[in-house]
């Protein structure tokens, strides 16, 4: 992610309502290690609704997806999460100085 402004970064992370719910869920509960079905249940949605958004967050590196037999297990990429948090902090600080 090479966003130069806060708006662009936040748009990628939370551009849709579901994406925002997922980011919030994993941020509040970093120990989630679950299937797409399990994650959908935890945000009160259907698997079909969250599938694409999870894939986007995996592409962005926020989430990690690992295959175990016939199960796809999704979890938070904690190092990337820390990196994003510090990037947001830097961008907020930068926007305050302008």
């Amino acid at each position, binding site marked *: 992610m090479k966003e130069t402004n806060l708006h662009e970064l936040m748009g990628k992370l939370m551009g849709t309502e579901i994406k925002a719910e997922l980011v919030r869920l994993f941020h*509040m*509960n*970093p*120990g*989630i*290690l*679950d*299937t797409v*079905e*399990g994650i959908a249940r*935890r945000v009160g949605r259907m698997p079909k609704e969250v599938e694409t958004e999870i894939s986007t967050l995996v592409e962005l590196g926020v989430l990690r997806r*690992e295959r*175990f*037999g016939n*199960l796809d*297990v999704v979890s938070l990429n904690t190092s990337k999460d820390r990196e994003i948090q510090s990037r947001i902090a830097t961008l907020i600080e930068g926007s305050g100085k302008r």
Partner: protein
Amino acid sequence: MRAPTGISELDAMLHGGLMRGDVALVVGSAGTGKTTLALQYLINGATKFNENGLYITFEEMPAQIYRDAASFGWDVRKLEAEGKLRVVCTSPPVLVQFVEQRNPIDAIIAEINAKRIVIDSISHLESFIPASELRGELYRLINHLKMKELTSIFTVESHEVFGNQLVVTGVGLSFLVDCIILLRIVEIQSTLKKALTVLKIRGSDHDKQLREFEITPQGIKIAAPFAQYEGVLTGAPRMSLTEEAGRAWAEAFARKRR
């Protein structure tokens, strides 16, 4: 040889703690304190016995566990940051998924060098795994944890709040585990009290008394046995004959003095 729970009275009842590498079942109806006991076992392991632990939850979110633990003064987030404890929220199919003897939680066990694990609650497996496969899957899971030399606590929901029936699970889980600790709500003189007893430890003697316990701001605190009552587990306790006779004599004596 033993993995102390850190709850001194319970450790005394268990003659030193859980047997290392064993699986203990904590059985109780809703609100009896299963989660508190299990969490306390992990917190004490990480802070008093240098044994890191993994807490697996199916329904309760980690954020809720952090909040509830904080009410006992346990800083789970701090222990996680120190690599001593990890709360994992997953679904039963993930827990019983084995590929070439590898399970999705193995990496976390290795990462924090876990010696203790809690699965809260094993009852959820019943909703996700066909009944015909459940016993086999539990047997596989138990052996997997034993191979990793973890000392485990499984919590299980008992549907009977009162009464003289106790069904641990329908799949014979009580035969698969090494230790059973029963938590029960009992009514004594119109007051609801919590009772704890150790039903079984494979290969060791244990205290067989039924003891009152409380959930205090510091966690589980076990008190004296219900020595004056009989039939406490049935939900209809009565004062023991010796106690009753003693009381009758005391009353008669007091009347005579008047």
